[in-house]
């Protein structure tokens, strides 16, 4: 017991030191390039955009390619919120109609900016890349499967380094997986010929599938349980996914090393022990145990047996 609480304490300290490290992105100030970006968002945030045709002088209305629609709210709540669009895109985009050749513009990958830079060292981009290379996403697909498949730089948030609730982390991260792995999406068909059965069918071994999907992330079972990464990127082949309930549903639940390591430090400061983190938001049968209840119940049970034994003793003796 003591050993456990010491471990929990150490764990708390190590995480709090990580979290109290200065936030890299200032999320409080107004975004730096709202004005300039508005020019782009004027068209690129709408399903239908309009412009004046220089030749005919008429106002034209056109449907926007859905892949090129970005919501300003999402952009400005993401990690790249202080960017100007033309920080990454060619300044030639500033003219309209855009030059057709611009379409062939190369997209940056995460490491192009974040690789080998001390500022981002704590995010371990290089390790993420290594882990990703081992994952099914890299081994079962060609190079066209890049970071962008899951992480859109136009909206990406670091959920696990902020004050997000566990349920928010779960929803955000799972939506990342669902954006391809939901059988209804086109995205999956873009890179695969196979047609997947619905997720609820594949996961029908889970009692209360919906509750599981809203309480834990796909990552919990589909990455290595011994993964030491902050956010695991080595997605395992489906045969290797965790299927043994007790991996989570026991006091040494693997969730402590996975999802629950992100619980924000504020909650920890208030409540202290790790069990409190579990209680705060989730109830995992077999993992949340109330130590007092356990002691009292065992004591009462033994007392009742003792009472019976004493009574039996006298019954035999006085016969």
């Amino acid at each position, binding site marked *: 017991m003591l050993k456990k609480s010491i471990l929990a304490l150490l764990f708390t300290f190590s995480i709090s030191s990580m979290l109290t490290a200065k936030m890299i992105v200032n999320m409080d100030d107004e975004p730096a390039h709202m004005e300039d970006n508005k020019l782009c968002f004027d068209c690129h945030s709408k399903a239908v955009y309009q412009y004046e045709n220089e030749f005919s002088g008429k106002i034209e209305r056109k449907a926007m390619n859905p892949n090129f629609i970005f919501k300003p709210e999402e952009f400005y709540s993401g990690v790249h919120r202080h960017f100007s669009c033309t920080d990454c895109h060619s300044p030639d985009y500033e003219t309209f109609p855009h030059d057709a050749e611009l379409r062939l513009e190369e997209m940056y990958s995460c490491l192009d900016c974040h690789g080998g830079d001390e500022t981002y060292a704590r995010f371990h981009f290089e390790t993420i890349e290594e882990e990703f290379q081992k994952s099914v996403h890299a081994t079962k697909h060609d190079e066209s499967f890049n970071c962008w498949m899951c992480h859109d730089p136009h909206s990406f948030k670091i959920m696990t380094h902020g004050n997000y609730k566990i349920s928010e982390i779960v929803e955000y991260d799972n939506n990342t997986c669902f954006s391809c792995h939901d059988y209804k999406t086109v995205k999956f068909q873009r890179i695969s010929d196979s047609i997947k059965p619905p997720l609820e069918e594949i996961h029908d071994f889970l009692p209360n599938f919906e509750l599981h999907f809203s309480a834990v992330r796909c990552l919990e079972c589909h990455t290595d349980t011994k993964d030491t990464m902050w956010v695991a990127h080595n997605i395992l082949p489906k045969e290797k996914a965790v299927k043994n309930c007790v991996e989570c549903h026991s006091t040494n639940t693997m969730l402590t090393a996975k999802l629950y390591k992100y619980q924000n430090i504020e909650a920890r400061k208030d409540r202290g022990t790790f069990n409190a983190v579990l209680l705060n938001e989730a109830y995992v049968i077999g993992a949340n145990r109330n130590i007092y209840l356990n002691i009292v119940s065992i004591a009462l*049970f033994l007392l009742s047996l003792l009472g019976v034994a004493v009574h039996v003793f006298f019954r035999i003796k006085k016969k």
Partner: protein
Amino acid sequence: MTEKLYLYPIWLRIWHAINALMFLVLLVTGVSLQYSNIDFPLIRFDYAVTYHNIAGIILSINYLIFVLGNLTTGNARFYKLKIKGLFQSLMKQANYYMFGTFKGEETPFPVNADRKFNPLQKVAYVVTMYVFIPIMIITGLALLFPETIVENVFNLSGIYLTALLHGIVSIMLLLFLVIHLYFSTMGKTPISNFKSIVNGYHEAHD
């Protein structure tokens, strides 16, 4: 002389048999779930979940037999508690169990056609059947449909609080069972009450 009284009608015995069996399944699977451990699984977790759910649903439906049976037959009269003088009669019965019985005294509340239970038994049965079991059924059903539970109560997960109540009352029921089983051996012979709940006839003390 051994007098035989028909005190346990057939519907009651059927209810009791199903109830006892499901209760044991719930107890074992429930303990297995609560104390689940990777290295020492009592019952495989997913099996335990399934059995626990099924047994819980059967016990709940079966509970209706108990309530309806008592509403429609005279059996309910055995459960009527009179508050006046209750404490004295409880003490009397407790006294008998603690001392009197060893001195060969007569039981203070002998069983007859109008009195099936002694006061202690009566209170235990009323509390168990009309307080504990309903709480277990309600919290159990809620946990089966967790989306119906309030999410957050004073910063604690509503599901957790429901599960805690389910757990606390389950311990009360475990204690009830130990006491119930033991006091059932206090009949005419240690096994005569067990025979009664099977064949329906009570064997009175000589």
